[in-house]
């Protein structure tokens, strides 16, 4: 099945990439950009087909590797 993982910076952690994007958008003439946060989007294809088992498995992947929980949160969506 597919697992879609969003890794985002915790609020309060400065996001230089988001800031730069916001800056660049304004420089390009896009007014009204109030804020930008940039994160990662990871799509996993896993052999596990049971969502009940897949959830903790992917959580474990996130904690061990995909996210650095000092600064990042993660969210998982499972699909078919």
């Amino acid at each position, binding site marked *: 099945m597919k697992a879609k993982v969003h890794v985002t910076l915790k609020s309060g*952690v400065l996001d*230089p990439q988001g800031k*730069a994007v916001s800056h660049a958008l304004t420089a390009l003439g896009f007014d009204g950009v109030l804020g930008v946060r940039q994160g990662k989007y990871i799509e996993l294809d896993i052999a596990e087909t049971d969502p009940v088992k897949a959830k903790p498995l992917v959580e474990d992947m996130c904690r*061990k*590797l*995909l996210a*650095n929980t*000092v*600064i990042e949160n993660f969210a998982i969506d499972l699909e078919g």
Partner: protein
Amino acid sequence: MKAAVIVFPGSNCDRDAATALELITGRKPQMVWHGDAALPDVDVIVVPGGFSYGDYLRSGAMAAHSPIMASVKAAADKGVRVMGICNGFQVLTEAGMLPGVLMRNRDLKFICRDVLLRVETTASEFTSAYTKGQVIRIPVAHHDGNYFAEPAVLDELESQDRVAFRYCDAAGATTEAANPNGSQRNIAGILNARRNVLGMMPHPERLADPLLGGTDGAPMFTALLNAFA
């Protein structure tokens, strides 16, 4: 002094670290491939710079979870000195051996240039050959050197005298302009609580040979050597 340099796929300052170690200590370090099961019996372990696993996902993240790092951690727990330079610092934070993380540089660009550092503590076997407050010139070369930790962690680092180096100007002032990457409180290098693990973004091994334009990095290796004299 017996030293080892860990080599991950994608490490590329491993040879530089070995060259500097040999130049100053007179002894070739052992190069340890990440896949090797056992760590040799050494006094100092260098986790070198480079792009382990391409720095994909997050710098140092994948190397931090490689089996050899469990041995490095165990060795550090027994008191072996561990020095993480640049990517090595990133690996040590990702492995939980040092607090905080190294985020993308403030200006989002890779930076390679000499910077000035103020030696914040000489109470470690890495920094004892400098004087406190001394301003030294060492190159940085990184994309992700922006040190971040929660304020409480930073306060603790400071109260325990565990900040090893800060970015500063020629007068030793830790100004915003002297901070190349946006690091919190201008931090360039830190120690663990036991003071036997050091992580730093600048590359002391790159200025240890006068031919390359300076020797301000050499005292780091001399200090280690003296610790085992």
